[in-house]
């Protein structure tokens, strides 16, 4: 992708704050793909987004359900975990929700549904630097978006 920026968060609270910031500034219809190992903090970031959208429901890992949709906040939040779709070739019906026009979509393990990810999306790679510290690299083709960070 054309543009990228690196951000360090020192603990869970900072990751949550970053998520909150995303919630307040990303335009509706945005699709964000999150990459990182198990435990890197993908769902933590989404929890922060939920906070920013005034969603009071508990944000849990969507691995079991593949998709969780939160409709009671300021804007809808779609949280997808494609982990279980690694070997799935059949139509999974997610395209009605990815890029939900009035809300924000966050996708973990998006490599397993790459054909459904719109060209204009934001990608965040999360790496563990130590037990609490994380390095997040945000990439996008839209330079405007990076100014939000």
């Amino acid at each position, binding site marked *: 992708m054309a543009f990228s920026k690196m951000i360090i968060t020192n603990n869970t609270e900072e990751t949550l704050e970053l998520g909150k910031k995303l919630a307040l500034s990303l335009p509706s219809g945005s699709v964000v793909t999150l990459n990182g190992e198990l435990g890197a903090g993908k769902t933590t970031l989404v929890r922060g987004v939920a906070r920013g959208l005034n969603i009071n429901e508990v944000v849990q890992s969507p*691995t079991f*359900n593949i*998709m*969780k*949709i939160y409709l009671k906040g300021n804007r809808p939040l779609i949280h997808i975990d494609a982990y279980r779709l690694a070997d799935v070739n059949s139509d999974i019906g997610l395209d009605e929700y990815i890029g939900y026009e009035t809300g924000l979509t966050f996708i973990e393990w998006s490599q397993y549904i790459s054909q459904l990810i719109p060209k204009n999306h934001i990608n965040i790679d999360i790496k563990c630097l130590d037990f609490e510290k994380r390095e997040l690299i945000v990439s996008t083709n839209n330079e405007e978006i990076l100014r939000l960070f």
Partner: protein
Amino acid sequence: MATILAIESSCDETAVAITRDGNLLANIVSTQIEVHRKYGGVMPEIASRLHAENIGVVLKEALETANIALDDIDAFAVTRGPGLIGALHVGLQAAKTLAMLYKKPLIPVHHLAGHIYANKYVDNFTYPLLAVVVSGGNTELVLMKDDLDFKVIAETRDDAIGECYDKVARVLGLPYPGGIPIDKLAKEGKHSYDLPTPLKGEKTLDFSYSGLKTNVINLVHNLEQKGEKVNVPDMCKSFQDVAVELVIDRTIKASKLYDVKEVILAGGVSANSYLRQRMTEEMNKLNIKINIPPMWCCTDNASMIAKVAEKLYDIKLFAPLNIGVDPNWSIEDWNKF
């Protein structure tokens, strides 16, 4: 008392039950587990498609089994949430159509309240009671001081216990759903692998299974990389011990804290034999009544929805025809829609 027709379609079982004055006249369940098995878990779109395919057939079978006509039904109940959004839609449309056509009340029921009330088919409740809700999608402790009084006093910070079982099973090459094979193999294994207790040292009633899952996955990968063979029964035993003990620990602490008279196990994971055994042991020690659901109650079905609906019918908790589903409905909001 009344004749209730209840519909359940929150996950991978399309179910319809009919009760009259508390007696179960029909309890039909069309399960999709076999279909989802090859995907290692429920595929929401497939689940929704199957619900739409099966709902008519299941309804028809329930009516024939109960030997009852739709005109004789006093109210139509349906699981409004939580669950998979597409799946919930199917059940709701079916219930709404019936309620509208027959001009009878529509009763929205909370899925987890259903799991808890399933135990009423076994025995009456003694309050205050603690419901330990453990399933693929949920892990929480619900305190009930009275009928229809729900307070969530603990829940998972990340993964549900059932989901953790499924993921561990996957890593060990075991089929879905993971609870059954892990429970079985654990009986043949020893606790020889060291897995840390989640949230150790923290003063909390919360659950957390994400770390345990990660530890098992990392351990298995490390062993494989070193060329060592994983002793699957031992890994199952080691994992299950930690997973179940967390539930036992929280239940004991919460029971003492809230001075409960009865503990109820509810949800799909309550079918786990080790959990049932350990829970019974500990509750007997504390002299707390323990209500363990029979196997047919552990999986999703509509008879548990009907059980809650009977109570809601008595208090006339009816919904207008324009309600929608709520895939994240909290049990504390059971009467808000």
